[in-house]
């Protein structure tokens, strides 16, 4: 293999979201050189950063679809990988609420689907049983589907863990590198990017809401992705225990419904709305979208205290007209992971595993001999027992200097984010790695100090510190 030629890789993965990072990680289990191209400045900058953060049990998707298969396998992998790769995951179980006796057959069909998909532990319970499990749910609930294997995960933490493990095993990441064109070239592909030319034998398309554009550069049969906008509101940790399960609504006459769930970090999350749009960068929050989500959630949990909202955000799902994932070799040597909408986060590691296996088989690549299976994340210093925390602070006094007081994040942890590979290069990157600024003051107090640490670690001036990609500089000039 052409490992001597730096610009020639066995596999080029387009997109460093959760699917691209999972694919890179899985490809690195084999003797393959892997490069990940990302148009933004960091991993986890698109759909992967703004979603429900749910590990779906697997009763939603129609049996036999890729969604069903990847969901069930993905949930299994996440459970295991959360331990070996050190990211936050909790099996909190989920409830699908049914508000109308007449809808119980729909609930039963979900149950049947789940059984066919191989989901364990599913149970239909009465409204009273649901309220016993979750006292905050509505009196109007008459039955519910309980899925004890559903979970919640940190989508940033998981994506970053995949990326770091891929990097540990040799994957190269190129950021601010947008793929403009792909042409066949000899046995592989020549990619024209905003950061120069790259060549690869195989291409993996994990470009999220842009995956149709990438696909259509290569394949005869065209794809059309519609960005589906979903708005969320996030509430203070003070009210994060309002529910312990992820609470869904049974899709009914009133629409698809929204969820109310705790997050792995103890906040309460409400959302999403669903609106098909054209603009693939339109992550605006809107008065109507926010109001819609808030009112729908009250149907499940009438007491959601919206005066405790700390932020709102919008994510885009990559919806494909066929309503299933598009995964596989769509043209010789070109592998799609397109149309990855819900349950995409759950499915990501399974999609990565599947694509890596296809490419390994096609290329005849052998498993990597010295593959590194384990990854240890940045220590969550404030969560450690006192003696352990004190020991770490003795080793590195910056671990004892709290910068983000809402989330208890130290200067040492912030500095660590830059030193990882791939490391943070922006404040959003720091935030997604260690949660600095994710708390109730939303970075009001800690922005100046966090920016100063970022500048120091990156060896740049404060005026060059960015929120995310170029153009998002915080400071105009030195006075």
């Amino acid at each position, binding site marked *: 293999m052409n490992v001597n030629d730096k610009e020639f890789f066995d596999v080029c993965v387009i997109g460093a979201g959760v699917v691209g990072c999972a694919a890179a990680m899985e490809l690195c289990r084999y003797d393959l050189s892997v490069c990940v191209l990302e148009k933004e400045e960091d991993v986890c900058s698109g759909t992967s950063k703004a979603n429900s953060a749910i590990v779906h049990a697997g009763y939603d998707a129609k049996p036999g679809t890729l969604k069903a298969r990847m969901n069930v396998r993905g949930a299994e992998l996440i459970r295991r990988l959360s331990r070996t790769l050190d990211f936050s995951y909790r099996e909190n179980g989920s409830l699908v609420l049914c508000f109308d006796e007449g809808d119980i057959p729909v609930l039963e069909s979900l149950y049947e689907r789940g059984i066919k998909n191989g989901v364990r532990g599913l149970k239909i319970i009465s409204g009273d049983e649901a309220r016993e499990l979750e006292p905050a749910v509505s009196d109007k609930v008459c039955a519910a589907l309980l899925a004890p294997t559903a979970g919640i995960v940190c989508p940033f933490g998981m994506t970053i863990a995949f990326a770091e493990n891929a990097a540990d095993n040799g994957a190269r990441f190129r950021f601010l590198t947008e793929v403009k064109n792909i042409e066949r070239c000899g046995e592989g592909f020549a990619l024209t990017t905003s950061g120069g030319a790259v060549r690869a034998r195989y291409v993996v398309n994990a470009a999220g809401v842009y995956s149709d554009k990438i696909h259509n550069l290569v394949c005869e049969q065209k794809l059309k992705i519609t960005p589906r906008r979903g708005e969320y*509101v*996030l509430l203070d940790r*003070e009210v994060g225990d309002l529910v312990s399960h992820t609470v869904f609504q049974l899709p009914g006459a009133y629409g698809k419904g929204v969820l109310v769930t705790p997050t792995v970090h103890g906040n309460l999350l409400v959302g999403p709305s669903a609106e098909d749009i054209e603009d693939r*960068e339109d*992550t*605006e*929050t*809107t*008065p109507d979208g*926010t109001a819609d989500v808030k009112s729908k959630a009250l149907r499940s949990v009438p007491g959601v205290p919206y005066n405790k*909202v*700390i*932020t*709102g*955000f919008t994510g885009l799902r990559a919806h494909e007209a066929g309503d299933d994932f598009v995964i596989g070799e769509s043209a010789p040597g070109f592998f799609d992971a397109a149309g990855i909408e819900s349950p995409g986060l759950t499915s990501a590691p399974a999609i990565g595993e599947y694509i890596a296996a296809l490419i390994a088989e096609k290329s005849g690549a052998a498993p990597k001999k010295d593959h590194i299976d384990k990854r240890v994340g940045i220590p969550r210093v*404030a969560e450690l027992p*006192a*003696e352990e*925390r*004190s*020991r770490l*602070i*003795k080793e590195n*006094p*910056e*671990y*004892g*200097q*709290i910068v983000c*007081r809402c989330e*208890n994040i130290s200067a040492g942890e912030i500095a660590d984010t830059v030193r990882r590979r791939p490391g943070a290069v922006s404040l959003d990157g720091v935030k997604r790695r260690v949660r600095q600024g994710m708390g*109730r*003051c*939303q*970075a*009001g*107090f800690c*922005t*100046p100090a966090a920016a*100063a640490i970022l500048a120091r670690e990156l060896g740049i001036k*404060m*005026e060059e510190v*960015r*929120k*995310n*990609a*170029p*153009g*998002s*500089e*915080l*400071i*105009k*000039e*030195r*006075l």
Partner: protein
Amino acid sequence: MNRHDIIIIGGGPAGLAAAAAAREAGVEDVLILERDVRLGGILNQCIHNGFGLHTFGQELTGPEYAERYADKVEELHIPYKLKTIVADVSADRIVTYVNAEEGVQTVQAGAIVLAMGCRERPRGALGLPGYRPAGIYTAGTAQRLMNVEGYSVGKKVFILGSGDIGLIMARRLTLEGAQVCCVAELMPYSGGLNRNIVQCLNDFNIPLRLSHTVTRIHGKRRVEGVTVSEVDENRRPIPGTEEFYECDTLLLSCGLLPENELSRAAGVKLDRVTGGPVVDDKLMSSVPGVFACGNVLHVHDLVDYVSEEAERAGRQAAEYVRGGGGDGETVVTLEAAGGVRYTVPQFIRPDNMADSVTVRFRVSDVFRDRSVAVYYDGVRVSKRKKRIMAPGEMEQITIRKDGFKAGIPKKITVCVED
């Protein structure tokens, strides 16, 4: 476990004044825990003048005002720890703190004075629609970046909210060469001091648009502008009134929230209106030996009142560790009624009260030529006419112990009347 007679959480104006007063009341063992790199708290970034008129009869800048109290703490040799964050406070007054030198430490306090101050309401909590680009700052964050770190945050600035820091920043940004397009305020009245409207907006021809809010933030990477709408009497945007303002920065000065996460951890009962602890006339919270003062108790308009209140809290904490006083059984509830949003303290224990107790409160609207009336169990005992009262400015009344000679009321009501 180490023990200190009094631990003061926060080395801003409240903590410093409380510490000095506790020491002067005769308690030797006082310790201040401060999270920042220097004493003085938020005053260090308030480089404008106007502080200290009541306390010193002088117009000082924020750092000068802080320095007076920091000097006093130094002169009294009161120990303090900087860059030290308090991680937890328990109901039995065990304080856990963390810093780089000592790691995690737990200490027992005889009494605690909560003086952690407040934080600003962020964009997310305001629910402002639009993108989430760089260039959205709370006014205090921008103030710190400019006045402490020395950076300009923007060239063309829109300010939402007419809180005092926003008004001060409008002037500060203008003086540094930025253009402040406008200050918009959701309410039909300003949330700041009248003198700041005059000196920071009017003097610089910066328009103040009351009953307006931001209904859309434009710009994917950096703020490119805001859409502003007029709001109706229910504070809902009126369709058709949208106007676009081009700007690269949006400053938010939309309210301050007492920072009571530690108080809550200690089991301190909080007031839903102030966001701060419910306290008695000695400024003691629902947890015995835990006192509160300054902006963690309720958001003040002037630091002079913070200092006065904090000195009271410091003295009372000293009294508590010496075993003095005793609470007594009788409790008089203070009730905020018509036009009055809250009172601090929320109740008085008359058995052991001082000769006079200052009760501070804020009104819920702008009132001209109205009176503040005080009722003891439904009987009016005083009525005082005020030319103007506004939500941005604190008001006060005094309750005298000798006023209870005729009998101790169960309830004292404070309200606004014609």
